[in-house]
């Protein structure tokens, strides 16, 4: 079969204002066969989005050729054919929806193509059914969740009956549930309708499903192959600022101690099978009780659980809050949330988008006041009318999702100084605080203070926004999904700076969807679902109940899953919830080593 997409030595240059031209793509050649599922990885600025925009002639190559079926994208006469054959879904669902009612948005593409009305109606029905959104056809989009909105965008694309669907980081802004919804739909379109998929993503787990994975670096394809081939090259991926799925990391670490252990493991099931497939698989009896004891010592050291013993500084009891109170549109956002924050700890909050967790944290610094129940912050009853909100907000810093959207000053230093200036501090003190805050996020004061705020990279803007809150020198720092939308390197950097604050005695509250991060860093975890706290405890306690989490539609870290499955099958003794790769590695090596040892004696 001839390829459906063909790129021949494509180069793309663009001219930013007042600087030399940048070459975003550098001699990329690629052929995609009909029905392929291709995933493109790469850190921010590696050229992957530029590549995607060449596939439907949103961008044209500076040199080289792009062919969609038999059409060259340079020929404007074929534009309509090209764009109806190659559908594209972007990152932010809100910015792609043009109509105020779901079904009309889905109809927008076919309307543009001049499809007759009867056929549009059929296609809208079909497309909405394919993305499981038929019951929502009359809804206004702003009442839908992110995952639902993104599925509407996909429906709007497939209603044009494209042969290729390009997803340009379409899952970056979604929570795990939304991401799963979108991925299921995409996979089904690929398998059942034969739609060719090209997905650009930062999530390595999404690449596991693909037929082919490409890794971009500096405008070139640096690495390509099947997922197994690509993820086997852990070191090379690290050089390209990519990480590998947690399961693969564990397998690679194991292969270093256990000769012959496969390195190219992609899923939990495969890893468990690989452990059983060893020449001397572990058995329960082989795990010495002493080993288990040392494990719990290990996990305690790992979690520094002593931090969770500090005095309670934020106390929430039976909190209820409504939105649009007193109007016909009133909604109960949370009901009966009970939660406390203790001095010096790292508290993780887990929950779906819409579970009410953002509403809860806005009570921490008095942005919202309780409608029922009690909120006490640093001994202040937040129900009182005369609360010194300014003092509370100084002591409890709140960093919103995508905080870079709050930047407004032209120069970096001024933006960071906004908070301290609001506190009416002296000029010297403001300067000192700005300096400390900027250094705390790794952006040197002298180097960055006079830079233009909006010329920074996405990751740097995120860090400056964080510095803007840090400059208030809060005692508690509340972060709402601090790593969302960043690439792996950006995620790692920002987490490093946040955890350094913990070591300076700042109490941290982190709202996140990333179970692996939460398991690694938190002293306690609270789970909020449908406006209520459903679980609260140490990560080991919370992740020790995988069934309950699964019922809530939440997951556990991949290592925890692997070790749970091994425990159930009797591969290792009762070790509880294993939260980190190091911990899992230690237990597994012990178990495998122990099961080997008696055999040698015999």
């Amino acid at each position, binding site marked *: 079969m001839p390829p459906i997409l063909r790129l021949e030595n494509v180069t793309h240059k663009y001219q930013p204002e007042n600087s030399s031209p940048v070459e975003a793509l550098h001699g990329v050649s690629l052929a995609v066969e009909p029905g392929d599922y291709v995933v493109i990885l790469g850190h921010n600025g590696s050229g992957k989005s530029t590549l995607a925009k060449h596939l439907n002639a949103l961008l044209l190559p500076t040199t080289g050729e792009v062919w969609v079926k038999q059409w060259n994208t340079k020929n404007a006469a074929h534009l309509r054919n090209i764009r109806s054959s190659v559908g594209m879904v972007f990152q932010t669902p809100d910015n792609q929806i043009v109509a105020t009612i779901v079904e*009309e948005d889905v109809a927008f593409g076919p309307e543009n193509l001049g499809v007759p009305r009867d056929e549009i109606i059929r296609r809208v029905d079909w497309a909405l059914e394919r993305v499981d959104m038929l019951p929502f056809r009359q809804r206004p989009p702003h009442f839908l969740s992110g995952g639902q909105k993104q599925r509407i965008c996909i429906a709007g*694309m497939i209603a044009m009956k494209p042969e290729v669907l390009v997803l340009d980081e379409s899952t970056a802004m979604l929570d795990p549930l939304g991401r799963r919804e979108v991925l299921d739909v995409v996979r089904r379109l690929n398998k059942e309708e034969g739609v060719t998929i090209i997905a650009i993503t930062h999530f390595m787990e999404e690449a596991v499903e693909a037929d082919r994975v490409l890794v971009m670096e500096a405008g070139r394809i640096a690495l390509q192959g099947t997922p197994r081939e690509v993820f086997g090259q852990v070191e090379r991926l690290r050089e390209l600022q990519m990480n590998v799925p947690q399961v693969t990391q564990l397998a690679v670490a194991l292969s270093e101690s256990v000769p012959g252990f496969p390195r190219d493991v992609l899923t939990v099931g495969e890893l468990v099978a690989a452990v059983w497939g060893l020449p001397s698989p572990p058995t329960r009896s082989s795990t010495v009780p002493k080993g288990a004891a040392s494990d719990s010592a290990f996990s305690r050291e790992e979690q520094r659980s002593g931090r969770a013993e500090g005095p309670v500084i934020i106390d929430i009891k039976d909190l209820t809050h409504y939105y649009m109170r007193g109007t016909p549109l009133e909604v109960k956002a949370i009901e009966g949330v009970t939660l406390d924050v203790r001095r010096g700890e790292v508290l993780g909050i887990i929950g779906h988008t819409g579970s009410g967790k953002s509403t809860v944290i806005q009570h921490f610094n008095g942005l919202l006041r309780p409608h029922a129940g009690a909120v006490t912050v640093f001994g202040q009853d937040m129900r009182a009318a005369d609360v010194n909100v300014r003092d509370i907000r100084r002591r409890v810093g709140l960093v919103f999702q995508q905080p870079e959207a709050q930047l407004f000053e032209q120069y970096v230093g001024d933006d960071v100084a906004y908070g301290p200036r609001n*506190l009416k501090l002296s000029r010297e003190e403001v300067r000192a605080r700005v300096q400390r805050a900027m250094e705390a996020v790794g952006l040197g004061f002298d180097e960055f203070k006079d830079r233009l705020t909006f010329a920074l990279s996405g990751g740097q803007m995120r860090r400056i926004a964080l510095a803007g809150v840090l400059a208030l020198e809060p005692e508690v720092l509340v972060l709402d999904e601090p790593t969302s939308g960043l690439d792996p390197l950006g995620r790692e950097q920002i987490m490093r700076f946040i955890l350094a604050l913990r070591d300076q005695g700042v109490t941290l509250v982190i709202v996140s969807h990333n179970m692996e991060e939460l398991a690694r860093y938190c002293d306690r975890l609270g789970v909020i679902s449908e406006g209520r706290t459903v679980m609260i405890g140490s990560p080991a306690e919370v992740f020790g109940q995988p069934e309950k989490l699964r019922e809530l539609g939440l997951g556990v870290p991949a290592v925890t899953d692997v070790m749970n499955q091994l425990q159930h099958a009797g591969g290792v003794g009762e070790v509880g919830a294993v939260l980190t790769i190091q911990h899992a590695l230690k237990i597994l090596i012990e178990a495998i080593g122990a099961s080997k040892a008696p055999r040698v004696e015999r």
Partner: protein
Amino acid sequence: MSEFELLRNVTIGQYIPTGSVVHRLDPRAKFLAGVILILAISFTRTLLPIAFLMVVILLISQTSRIPAGYVLRGIVLGLPVLALVFILQFIFVGRAEPAGRIYFEWGWLRVTHLSLQTIGVGLIRITCFIFLTSLVTMTSTITELTHGVESLLRPFRRFGVPSHELALINTIALRFVPTFAEEMEKVMKAQASRGADIGRSRLWRPDQAARNYLPLLVPLFLTALRRAEELVLAMEARCYMGGEGRTKFAQFHARPRDYAVVLGAIIVFGVAFFAPWPSVTQIAAALGFPGL
């Protein structure tokens, strides 16, 4: 406390589904009837006809099953301006047009029959306006309205009225109202978390007020621009190339009751204008209060 809930007090433009007859009307009929009633309200100058119009509007409001208190909340935002207008009218109308009976005179302040009538009619007129516009928007979805307007304007396309483009611009603008309200709320909260005192600037220092709003407006404009850029890409990716050659998904079919509604509005218009309304003075005289 709901200092950050922006949509709470903006009642115009919110669709309130109660499933009433008014909701089920063809939006074109609703729109035409609304325009006719608004014309009637605008040109009525005496008390009784406008009171009659008010009653008609209250009846429609009853039929729509939307709480009148909620509709009236829309007035709250405009109250300061309204108050100013009435104070000015109270002070100046009597002086400027010393016609009619004078009830009260103190220095240059003069309260006349005409000034009271102007104020009374003005009050009812504003309430009617708010009720009517709110009712139309609360009982029709944005799509119904825009498609309705587009469909009404289509005959004028040959005279160069870009009906499709107007409708699309309108839809997109309205589509993003909740998005931007959310965005604004988020930025307000974020800056408040950095110690900002939003909305607490003093009236006599507009320079300070402006500076206080910069941290809100700059981020909002920047996101608006970014969203616009992405929306253009997304629309291009969906083959949007202008209104030519497009087909339409949404269609309306007018039923007898829709024609009846427009006819009803015309009759109300006629009654308000051409019926031999007695003046308030005449009624008072008939009731035995001559000389009012």
